[in-house]
């Protein structure tokens, strides 16, 4: 067994983790404000296809990524309007977005199906560092956005725990009545964080398109990563830095089938191995939901509840 292969798998896992991290960071800040957005899959797909189409017509990578961000934000704006202002059921609204996003991305993507991506995100060449034996591919072998994502996780973590708006955000998810009593607009906070969250999800999809997927093929594009990202938020206890660890772990599980196939190791059929990420996520969720665990780790208390101020 070639240990180098496993190293490469690990490096690969870190890479694919980028999408997971972006999507779960987006879901995380949304949930921190008290809103559940289940539509991640739809946002990823729309981000991917929009990016592709824009790159196809303009040839500009950054413009394409920008469009992914805008699309994600726009979809999230609809979700926020439905759930915060109109107080619709957040679960059903998120699911509707998955369906809408899946359909629309397929619709838009039809003309470009099978076409290989017009631009690619290149990995940064760190020169000598990239050639180091283990650290090379694992730490120095990635593209700018991946590094930016790690930085983003750090920034969001600082935002949450070290700044005043972050404090208010955390309070909004737990006790919106308290925040409201201070004269701060709960609605505004929820809107802002839902939209920004959606933007991150869109970016995650766009990045995936240009860094990992070879071509636009709807069903193979995300493979349930959006849902894993949602589970990842729970796994990370709504803390950004832990999301990185979890994402790499899940990313590894997602990559393993390919590596096994490439190495022609057939202990288990590839389909069964493909089940592992999902089964593992399930096991993790179970472990995290014992009452003791929940008390210690804790979702935002008012997650999923529309906030209605008592009339005076």
């Amino acid at each position, binding site marked *: 067994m070639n240990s180098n292969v496993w190293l490469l798998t690990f490096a690969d896992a870190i890479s694919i983790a980028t999408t997971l991290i972006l999507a779960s960071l987006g879901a995380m800040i949304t949930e921190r404000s008290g809103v559940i957005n289940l539509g991640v899959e739809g946002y990823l797909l729309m981000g991917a296809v929009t990016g592709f189409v824009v790159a196809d017509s303009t040839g500009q990578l950054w413009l394409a990524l920008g469009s992914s961000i805008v699309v994600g934000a726009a979809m999230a704006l609809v979700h926020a309007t439905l759930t915060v202002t109109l107080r619709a059921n957040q679960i059903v609204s998120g699911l509707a977005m998955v369906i809408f996003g899946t359909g629309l991305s397929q619709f838009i993507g039809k003309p470009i199906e099978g076409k290989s991506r017009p631009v690619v995100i290149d990995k940064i060449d760190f020169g000598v560092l990239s050639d180091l034996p283990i650290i090379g591919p694992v730490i120095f072998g990635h593209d700018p956005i991946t590094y930016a994502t790690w930085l983003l996780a750090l920034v969001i973590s600082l935002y949450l725990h070290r700044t005043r708006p972050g*404090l208010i955000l955390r309070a909004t998810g*737990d006790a919106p009545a308290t925040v409201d009593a201070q*004269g701060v607009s709960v609605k505004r906070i929820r809107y802002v964080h839902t939209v920004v969250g959606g933007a991150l999800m869109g970016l995650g999809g766009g990045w995936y398109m240009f860094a990992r997927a070879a071509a636009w093929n709807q069903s193979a594009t995300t493979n349930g990563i959006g849902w894993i990202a949602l589970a990842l938020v729970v796994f990370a206890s709504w803390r950004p830095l832990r999301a990185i660890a979890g994402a790499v772990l899940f990313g590894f599980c997602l990559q393993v089938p390919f590596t096994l196939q490439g190495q022609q190791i057939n202990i288990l059929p590839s389909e069964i191995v493909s089940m592992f990420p999902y089964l593992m996520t399930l096991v993790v969720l179970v472990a995290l939901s014992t009452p003791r665990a929940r008390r210690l780790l804790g979702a935002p208390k008012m997650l999923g509840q529309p906030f209605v101020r008592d009339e005076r």
Partner: protein
Amino acid sequence: MNASSEATQGSYRENGAAPSALSAQNVTKRFPGVIANLLVNFDVARGEVHTLLGENGAGKSTLASILSGLYRPDEGSVLRNGKEVRLSSPRSGLSHGIAMVHQHFRLVDRFTVAENVVLGSKGLSFVLQPKDIEAKVSEVSEKFGLPLDPRAVVGELSAGQRQRVEIVKALYHGAEVLLLDEPTALLAPPEVVKLFETVRAMTSAGKSVVFVSHKLGEVVDISDRITVMRDGKVTGSVKRGEANASRLAELMVGREITLAPRRGTSNSGDVLLSVSQVHLSHDQSQNQSNQPNQPNILSDINLRVRSGEILGIAGVSGNGQRDLAEVISGLRQPNQGAVTVCGLPTVGLGARATRQAGLAYVPEDRLGTGLAPSLSIVDNLLLTRDRGFLVDRKSALIEAQEFITKLEIKTPGPLTPTRKLSGGNAQKVLLARELFSTEDLSRVLIVCSPTRGLDVGAVESVHALLDQARKNGKAILLISEDLDEVMTLADRVLVLYRGSIVLEAKGVAEDFERVGRAMAGISA
């Protein structure tokens, strides 16, 4: 208005120069169906502790809310340091140095003390400086004798400590006038002592404190002045030294009571409900941090109710009433003790079995617990019946029609969802279901606050229903915060205070004062 209220009005002129720190002039406030405050005058001077005393519903919390900016008065005005101010929100109140600490704390459990204190601060830097904040929080808390660890997580603090956080929060933001709403309601005696020390420290520093309370005995020592309210009006005011428990109790509850001439029934019916040595302690695993910090929710409860008798349980809300009702009805299991319904021991059998033994329970929360709000009257009548595999709505429909006619329930029809009914009509449905089923299985009835929030006509109807049930031989346990109601309806009265029975009396006018004092925690 009598002479005492003139004294109240005059006091802020009394000292000559200094206008009072905060005052209400001829404030009136109405809510749908009730006048909460009527032409109320109240003020508090710098460095003074002025207590607003009264029963639940007297209007004192409303007045305090108006003074702090939570509500706006319909008429009258609020003056700060003699100048009229329009307080549009609690925030604007705070900008004038007025802060209210509510009975139910507005805190984020997950945050530390420091984070909670600083949550609403304007002018806080973008990046939090935890050390600075913690230092300032410590400074404030030490200055006023409110020891707190700024790093402690609020969710793990006791009720007394959480209250301290709320007070520190107010002081941190520069409050000069503090209104404390029922501050001792959730405190154990030692914590009450600490609170009073804090209050003295604050007034020594020139702050003004308004205590809103019903606990007569506690406030007598701490208050410079006590103003009593009842039914939205000020009934009297006394200064330190003039305070006399009896006089205050009379101001709080006393009035001519015309007890309706009622029963001549004897109390020789069989004992249908028996409760002995029931204890209920706090459930540690549930970590209900708003529970009073007392050893037990219920301690050594003993009572007996006979057929044809109404036993009243009087007490201010929050002293264990609902817990008692839930234990007796089988919804909760006591840690110790026995409950016997019609001869059958029911502890541990659950709600359904207890009901089948012959006990009916009318909870305080009509629409949230006793009824399913979106379901029709007919469906709700079926709620506590045996239903079988298929639900028989036909006979329930007939019953519903009967009830609507007999009890004059105002409703478009028997298929109306119960949330569309007014409070009184919903209560009638609830009582009808529990009192008068065609099978007439229930012989014991527990009723909690049956006339809360109802208008006079509905109150009369409900009382008539209860009296009739008693005549039919039912044993009724009436748990109510409305002392008038208890004294009017009950043959005997027990007073529940902090989870224990502290007094037994008869339902006659002479015992009224005694009961009132016991409710306030003053031992006879």
